[in-house]
């Protein structure tokens, strides 16, 4: 077995290594899903949603976790916004949600449903 330098200094903070399609715009009608490279799930010990990927971990903050929770490849962006506004009893979240989705998309965490 050989242990590479990258693994000896595993950078658990880098989340943008697999960034792709940064220029693509997110439309309200887009259906987004978690990129199959990632496992998205709740982690009890961290009390947070996580994205796990080859040799990496991203701990999501509360808002990010809840947004990704609805990126199931079925709901379109406007439906995700509706769900979040209902869940958190808030209005006018669309701009923030779309902005985050663009970040998540650029990082490769989510992709347009194929």
């Amino acid at each position, binding site marked *: 077995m*050989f242990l590479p*330098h990258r693994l*000896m200094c595993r950078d*658990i*903070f880098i*989340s943008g290594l697999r960034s792709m399609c940064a220029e693509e715009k997110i439309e309200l009608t887009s259906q987004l899903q978690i990129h199959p490279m990632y496992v998205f799930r709740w982690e009890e010990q961290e009390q947070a949603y996580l994205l796990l990927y080859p*040799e990496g*971990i991203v701990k999501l*903050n509360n808002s990010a976790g809840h947004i990704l929770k609805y990126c199931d490849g079925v709901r379109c962006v406007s439906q995700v916004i509706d769900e979040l506004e209902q869940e958190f009893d808030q209005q006018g979240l669309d701009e923030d949600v779309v902005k*985050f989705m663009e970040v998540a998309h650029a990082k490769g965490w989510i992709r347009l449903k194929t």
Partner: protein
Amino acid sequence: MPKAGSDLKLDGNGKPLWLVLELTYKCPLKCPWCSNPLGFEDYSNELTTQEWKTVLRDARKIGSLQLGFSGGEPMVRSDLEELVDEADTLGYYTNLISSGVGLTKDRLKELKRVGLKQIQISLQHNDAAKNDAMVGVKSFEQKVQCIEDIKSIGFPVVMNVPVSRFNIDAVEDIVKLAEYHNVEFLEFANLQYYNWALLNRDELLPTIEQLQHAEAKVNEARARLGKNMTIYFVIPDYFDGRPKACMNGWGAIHLTIAPDGSALPCQEAQTITHLEFPNVKDRPLDWIWNESPAFNAYRGTSWMKEPCVGCDEKENDFGGCRCQAFALTGDATNTDPACSKSPHFDMIASAVENARVTGRPGMPLVMRTRGAVSNLMKKVCA
């Protein structure tokens, strides 16, 4: 609600997020840069399936998330599938680190079925004869077939190329081979000099010119391939003047379990001979991680000496690697000699310089084999 660029970072918060199980030191290959102990043949008491399962359960309880199955060659263990199954059920993200030898299509299918997420497979050269000479065993065709099988079963492929002076000039051709096989992640892993690699360092270390040439070729390939392939190429600590932030700090986020159940803060930790590493068969893992003297020996910064103590980079690189400090200076609390501020930096600089001279043209390499090395003379005649 979210702002772009929200803080999405995760530090260990004192948890061993990364767990590596070295299931066995057995391996069909004879790589002369192997990171396993020089005395690997002395470890015959591997943990049983049930003992590994206990480790998996206990490590989850103290926060482990990412899991690497490693070795030796983990495919040697016939219970690998059972362990992956257990690990996946417990909620780990499971990675397999293999040479590809013994990784048959049937076993790949079963590993996929039980939840394995990722496979890292090693290849040494795009030239079959050179690859086989480097690992001491005919294996090139099996490795390439394995890459094809991994793809066809739907795993992402991470191809790992341990880089020495013997393959660094082939970087461009290796990229082409990876491209041909639609590899998603290609890692050129410049060797780290511990154990077998340290033994063979004078033969393996590339020159700085070779390294710069390879880096330029990697950058060309990155520009050409864009998002189709992610290529890792980290300038190794020997050439950087800066020590690596090894393991993100001793006992910070990383836990390795050796084949016999010894718990280690990193794979190389047993090279620090005066530390006594606790065994999962004798002690609870929670105690091992949090309380044991070995895991606390170099945790944090209180163990540091000058120049680390007064250095404003100590929170970033933790003084570099404890094992490298011990291996080269005999004192694990010394600054890693790879740091240009270390009083021992000359040792690294002269090794790098020596590589240019190709000082020992007549010397062979010591392949990782039983009985290849002995410490008896030092013990008996000291």
